[in-house]
């Protein structure tokens, strides 16, 4: 019941926006998102799956029963954490848009709420049909948000975003359909799209080579979404051109659809192939970390810098997943949340700067600390969270991911197929992250004040952040601090679900390390004996 409420309430909000006059659109949207947040908190409080692997908030709806299509919803602790991230970010995104969006208000807030429904749907879906529908539907609102409310190059960015990610997920769709077909063959023509059944089928009856193909297809679809190294180029463009709230949601939640997909489908469905191919994916992630970090370092556009930093940061998240041990998975889940918070906040801050000075070029603007001290404080705070300063949230997840990868080798505490070198090279990303983020801070926050010509605060916005803007940022900052000091909130809650996911891996990994690694990881280990 709660699940249906979470998915449908934003849609009710859309109806409300359509019915109400345009000037009420933003209030309606804010109220809706707040109510949804309240409902999600209530659902989380009443949730029985914390600390044990069970499913909660379940519900189902018979649809095309002839084809086994039954809409199922439900959440385990990992899903619920991401739902909470979504419902937490949405009111802030709405509130943060109050001053930046000035016309076509109803459409704007309508699309935002539609997006929210789709995102929650993705996380709560327990069957592939609902999952895929929601997964694809997130593209539509985002397409319009970028295309209508974006900046100068928005048309190209929106089309590229749409086509690129759509193409990727079509391949995933094909894989899903094939999987469902294969399951129906095995079950005498009895079709099902339930994720649990399909996972069981994939792990028990698929051959290793079939799993490998499945892995490849899933990797293409979800990898584009994350994005993993060679398929990342839509992201900087989309991020740069999107309106502030769009960037926040994109970084905060939409990218997590990719990592969530990997966690939810790839890890449980094709374990043998994952063990075989984890080193390759890890290497792509590491390339992404270093490559994107160095690109960040020479950027002049602040927003593009933060966008590329997402590519770099999510590399750690992917690494954590494919460490295939509890620390890595916990680190990865934490990373999804933490990246959403800190990068989301950075996009808010850049948006607030952009609203005042209409530039994102670090050569044209700088030294804003004296002029906007509150803004500067938040900027430094979230940059530090993003850099991974211990005591703030980013550190915990980065540390767990890296230590997991480091120990995920032959003689590790938990067997695995990666190893120290993977972690050692990826950890260079820590240094690079400090380099590019502090250069950004050094330019736009500190130093002598530089303002773009002809753009002085003639707008309605206050010189420094106003109350509304502070209200947007404070919850993010508080959560960054809380998750940095008390990360057990998430770790303890999700540990059982993670253990369930990993249950299938332990024998495989032990086998793999007994055979001194698979062929692929052996070749990649660099001639190790």
């Amino acid at each position: 019941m709660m699940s249906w409420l979470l998915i449908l309430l934003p849609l009710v909000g859309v109806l409300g926006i359509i019915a109400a006059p345009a000037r009420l659109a933003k209030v309606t949207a804010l109220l809706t998102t707040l109510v949804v947040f309240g409902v999600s908190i209530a659902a989380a409080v009443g949730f029985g799956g914390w600390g044990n692997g069970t499913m909660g908030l379940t519900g189902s709806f018979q649809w095309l029963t002839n084809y086994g299509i039954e809409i199922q919803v439900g959440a385990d602790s990992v899903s619920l954490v991401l739902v909470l991230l979504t419902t937490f970010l949405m009111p802030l995104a709405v509130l943060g848009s109050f001053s930046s969006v000035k016309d076509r208000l109803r459409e704007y807030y309508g699309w935002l709420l539609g997006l929210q429904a789709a995102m929650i749907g993705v996380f709560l879906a327990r069957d592939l049909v609902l999952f895929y529908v929601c997964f694809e539907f997130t593209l539509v609102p985002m397409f319009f948000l970028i295309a209508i409310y974006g900046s100068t190059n928005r048309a190209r960015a929106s089309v590229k975003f749409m086509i690129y990610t759509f193409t990727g997920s079509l391949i995933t769709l094909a894989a899903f359909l094939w999987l469902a077909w294969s399951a129906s063959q095995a079950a005498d023509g009895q079709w099902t799209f339930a994720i649990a059944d399909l996972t069981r089928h994939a792990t028990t009856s698929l051959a290793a080579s079939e799993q490998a193909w499945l892995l490849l297809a899933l990797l293409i679809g979800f990898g584009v979404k994350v994005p993993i190294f060679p398929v990342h180029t839509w992201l900087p463009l989309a991020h740069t051109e999107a309106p502030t709230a769009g960037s926040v949601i994109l970084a905060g939640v939409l990218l997590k659809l990719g990592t969530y997909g990997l966690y939810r489908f790839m890890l449980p469905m094709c374990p043998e192939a994952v063990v075989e191919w984890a080193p390759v994916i890890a290497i792509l992630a590491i390339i992404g970390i270093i490559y994107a970090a160095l690109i960040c370092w020479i950027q002049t556009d602040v927003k593009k810098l933060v966008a590329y930093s997402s590519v770099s940061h999510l590399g750690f998240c992917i690494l954590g997943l494919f460490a295939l041990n509890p620390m890595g998975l916990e680190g990865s889940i934490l990373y999804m949340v933490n990246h959403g918070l800190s990068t989301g906040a950075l996009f808010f801050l850049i948006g607030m700067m952009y609203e005042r000075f209409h530039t994102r070029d670090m050569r044209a603007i700088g030294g804003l600390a004296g002029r906007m001290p509150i803004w500067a404080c938040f900027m430094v705070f979230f940059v530090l969270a993003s850099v991974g300063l211990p005591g703030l949230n980013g550190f915990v997840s980065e540390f767990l991911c890296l230590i997991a990868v480091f120990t995920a080798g032959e003689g590790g505490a938990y067997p695995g197929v990666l190893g120290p070198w993977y972690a050692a090279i990826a950890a260079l990303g820590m240094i690079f992250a400090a380099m590019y983020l502090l250069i950004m801070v050094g330019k736009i926050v500190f130093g002598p004040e530089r303002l773009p010509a002809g753009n002085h605060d003639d707008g309605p916005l206050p010189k420094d952040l106003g109350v509304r803007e502070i209200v947007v940022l404070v919850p993010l900052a508080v959560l960054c601090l809380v998750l940095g000091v008390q990360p057990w909130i998430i770790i303890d809650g999700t540990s059982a679900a993670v253990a369930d996911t990993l249950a299938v891996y332990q024998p495989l990994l032990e086998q793999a390390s007994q055979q001194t690694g698979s062929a692929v990881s052996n070749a990649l280990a660099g001639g190790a004996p």
Partner: protein
Amino acid sequence: MTGTTIAIRIAESIPAVPAVPMADVVEATSHWWAGFILWCPLISLVLCGLCAAFRVKSKLPAWITVLSLACSFTFTVILGNLEDVPERINLFEWIAVFWSDGSFVANFALYIDSLTILWMSFVTGLGTLIALYASEYMEPDLGKGYARFFAGVSVFLFAMGCLVMGDNLLMLYLGWEGVGFASYWLIGYYYRRPEAVAAAKKAFIVNRIGDLGLALAIYLIWATFGTIQYNELMTLLDEGTYATVYEHWSVEAIPYLLMLAAFGKSAQLPLYIWLPDAMEGPTPVSALIHAATMVTAGIYLIARMYPFFLLEPTSLHVVAWVGGLTALLAATIGMAQYDIKRIFAYSTVSQLGFMFLGLGVLTTYGASYHVFTHAFFKAVLFLTAGAVMHGFAGQLDLRKLSGLRRMKGWRIVAWTMFVGCICLAGFPFTSGYFSKDAILAEAFVTQGPGFEILGWIAIFTAFLTAYYTFRVWCRVCAGPVHFEPGDELHDDDHHDDGHDEGHGFHPHAPRFAINFVLVVIAAGALLASVPYFMTNEVSDIKGGWIADMVNDSTAASGIPGHAEHPGTIAHDHSGDHGHHHGSILGMDPHVAMYYISGVVGGVGLFLAFWLHLWRRQDADRLRSWLLARAWIRWLPVAMENKWYVDEVYHALVRAPLWLLGHIFHGFDRYIIDGLLVDGTARLPRLVAKWFQPLQNGMLQSYAITMAGGAALIALLMILMMQFFEGGGVQ
């Protein structure tokens, strides 16, 4: 070397590794209040933040900070007198992941042993005094950055407390990065100045390189030992129950990774470059963070993890050599600088080099004692430099200041600086004399590759130290009265006089807070020699309670006279005491060093008085003489240009990375996105273009196309039918 031989060698050396008897570690629940050593600065941070938010224009932030740090100091002293066994105090759970057959736990917990207390006592004590000093020093910024400054100091003290008092390596890491961040905050305090911003950034990034080493060391330690808690680690080391080789890494890699961290934080070769630039921060910060406390974190780390270093003796040789060479290099640079704070900064790098030398030659006592004495005398030197800077509108060029001791109101500054100088120069019977000699003598006692050469290098460095130290004092404090003000004339500073381009400029002498702190710390610097004469609990060792404190901790094996050393390092104290293989000029090194270092210091001091007080023109003459000779010209030039190390870094690290960034950016834009992505996206259009001519609107051509298409389909059908008939599916 294969894994097995390493394993065997380590197995052999295990029983000899002395560590604290960890069975004695007490889980203390009654001492929960020890957490207030950390919470006090944190409370102060919050209150200072509130002061900043409400734009408090009084000195309230300073008093809050001084009070809270004093509380921390009091708690530290109480804690130190209360217990002398190691104890753990669990505050709360921080990062903990459990799974079916294992766990990773890093609690927010304190590990209190005597090494912790030793470090915390001078960290909080000097912290309190320097905060008091800063309450006056930062006056010009009242209502502007005043609260921000004291908030930064509070952050620093909190982080330093975590670093020193943490009971596991992750707590240490929290403090390690935390002090780096506090340092970033405070170096960049004058955030409008591009140099300050650049220096802050440089400090953070160079420190991050070291942090990488620490992070990897933590991973490796956890992977090998399954814990990162000190007491458990030391127990495991004692028992020898751990895998020596982890994958292709062995436990022998741990000390090198830790070393990287220590060299980053404590500004050693090749990572020292950030420290001189860090002088852009306000001077109290330089005194507290970049001289007395934070930069000694590297020494603390190695002392704390000393048993790991004993597992791999070569690592200690590396530590010794890096320390010795850094000491020499920094001293040569310091000789040729004109900015007082920079001279002191290079001198800090140099003295830290001495401490690492001490660690490397197996005297954790010497290193710790030098940390302790150095904290006082270097703090006093920086604080006097700060007083000068404060009074002369930012003037720090020693050529433009002279005769301070004859000026009214400046006598305390001049003479406390003198105290700092004699201690730093190692003048006989000062604190620096004893602590430095403890290190130098061991360099001749302990056997290692070229340790004797290293000892002579260190003695030569001591001579240079005496020279450059008194160069500053003779120029600035002695001689005829003469001064030029600097260029930082504060608007709200000297209300009474209009100062036009330095004419009518009146240096304003320090008042009570500054003078008081100077006198107290200078007294501390002198009294720091007392522990050397005090008696010990253990009769075999010397050095008073400082040696006792080190002896009770994980760094115990670095005490001369301590029971045993691993067989792989021949330390001549083991076995019969008083019999030394090492000797200098036929004498016992410890005795000989008293004379040698006295003489060397005296010569350096004499040279400084000659060139910079009695006949200052000789110094200029010497310089121009050197510069005129082609064969020697490079020496002063290189020294004045800091041996071009920054330029080398730029060429070897920064420029290639910058280039790589641009290459990647181009690759991303033109190859991945342009060629592959957009190229693929253009394919359909390209294909469409081929067929576009068909849509030409002419009926005949459509007819032809239609006919051709029909023919093609017919052909295909015939072919397929033949295929199926001839052994196809049916």
